[in-house]
């Protein structure tokens, strides 16, 4: 079984003065979260969806699932104070579906509404082979490392650098073990699941992402998304 775990528990603190977290902002009269979930809803390979969201939005998300006929959504669970806790809660939410260790969990940010069907498919296929995969893009800009934010400490070889996206996809047994070990070690604020999985001794393989699969983090990102959609709408006269 392939299950999508959609993370929609962010606070949107980098969205300026928006009155709600970015994943709930409307684009074409529909919350961004719904646009993202719809992509997984229509994916043949995905059998179930679990949404992790802010506690106060759980009822609202359930209403949207009904309103937009998101029939694959089987559970909506509350997130935590960090991404890591939110994913852990999501995994607990998946467990009620009698999930097996070999089942595949596709973890995706609700704020990446332009993830393609091909990326999801490639994640699942690679995960079947390797057990743990991350969606990445080769770094196109030079990455500068600075400790004091004033002086360059280091410039690494760009050909070895990649920018992480989502989905991050794991066999359930692997991701669950990684989270439980982290919890046992009081490690509760790791921002990336791959980091936890690597710490647990499992290699994480790379899957090619897409420039379009960008995360709506700031107001500028939202503007770029809307601009892309506006250009796409241009039809014949």
């Amino acid at each position: 079984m392939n299950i999508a775990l959609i993370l929609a528990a962010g606070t949107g603190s980098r969205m300026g003065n928006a009155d709600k977290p970015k994943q709930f902002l409307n684009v074409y009269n529909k919350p961004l979260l719904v646009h993202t979930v719809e992509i997984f809803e229509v994916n043949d390979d995905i059998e179930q969806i679990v949404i992790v969201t802010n506690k106060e939005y759980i009822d609202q998300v359930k209403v949207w699932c009904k309103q937009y006929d998101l029939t694959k959504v089987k559970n909506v669970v509350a997130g935590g104070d960090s991404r890591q806790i939110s994913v852990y809660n999501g995994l607990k939410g998946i467990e009620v579906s009698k999930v097996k260790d070999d089942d595949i969990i596709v973890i995706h940010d609700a704020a990446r509404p332009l993830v393609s069907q091909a990326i999801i498919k490639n994640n699942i296929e690679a995960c079947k082979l390797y057990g743990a995969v991350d969606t990445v893009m080769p770094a196109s800009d030079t990455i500068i490392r600075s400790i004091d934010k004033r002086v360059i400490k280091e410039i690494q070889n760009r050909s070895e650098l990649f920018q992480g996206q989502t989905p991050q996809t794991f066999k359930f047994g692997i991701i669950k073990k990684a989270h439980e070990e982290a919890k046992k070690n009081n490690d509760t604020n790791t921002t990336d699941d791959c980091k936890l999985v690597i710490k647990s001794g499992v290699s994480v393989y790379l899957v090619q992402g897409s420039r379009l699969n960008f995360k709506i983090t700031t107001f500028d990102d939202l503007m770029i998304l809307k601009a892309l959609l506006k250009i796409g709408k241009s039809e014949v006269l």
Partner: protein
Amino acid sequence: MFVVTYKVTAPGVLEEFVENLDAENKVLVSVDRMAICKADIRYFLGTRDKYILDHKYPLTPIHEAVGTVVKDPTHTFKVGDKVILIPNSIDESLCPTCPNRRCFESELGNNYCPYATFRSSNADGFLKNFYACDPTLLVKYDSKVSPDIAVYSELLSVAQAACRRINFAKAKNIALFGDGIMAYVVYLVLTYIYHVEITVFGISQDKLAMFKNATTTTYTAYNGPLFDTLIECVGGQFSENAINQMIDISQVGADLILMGVSESGANINTRKILEKGLSLKGVTRSTREDFEKISKALENESLQKAIQPMVLSVTKIKSINDIYHCYEEDINNKTIIGKNIMSF
């Protein structure tokens, strides 16, 4: 839901776009297979009048496609149903006040409606991974039929529309002019649906060899009887020559059915048309009924086998380069009857 679509923005230029797919109260279909038509190639190469092109671009191409139903709030289809996408839509609310009354005649059909929209011509086409439409713009086909075969439905439906113009009670001697893909699908419809014998006039012996159940010949070699029904599938710069040859070997009162598209006018022998009392009928596009007839006919395994050689390749679209590749292959293919099919 946001979907990726591709548009021709200028001659020879395809670009990737993102659009919001409005699927509310519509059937949502994942597009399985697409085929490039000659009209798509003309828009892609920009071989139409500049004024027309300026009004068309940017345009999502492709009007030959099949898909799978993903959601249907109208409850017309089941999830997983295989469907043919109909590219032409008619606004029937305009019919009561429209002066074109002959659309209601079944022989002609409403595919000639001047207010119709046609995908990849005056409306965006099917080159996108998901498509949403009214259920009347979809026709279910047997899931046992390969989508590589079913994607030829639109082309076959146009051939079927041409056959609607034939008076089979009177047609005893049918000639088909052309050895390209349109001629081949007309041959398929006449042979496997109407079960009539035809004579095919072409130039390329290799291509004519594909018309296995027909008599094939070249115009210069032919010295048989005259024909009462002649179908032109040549188009382009050679259509003028073909139409004049058809006029020459027509019986008195024969029907000439024209299907080939020519951007420049054809200088044809009107004296002989008058002398013989010939009727010229133009055929383009098809109606929903034509699609339904083709969908049923596709269940015939012999027809499926006869379509199979036209599937030259199936390319999975991973990037825009794959679409360019398919266009180039189809543009450069002058020798083999068939298309390079695209899939998502």
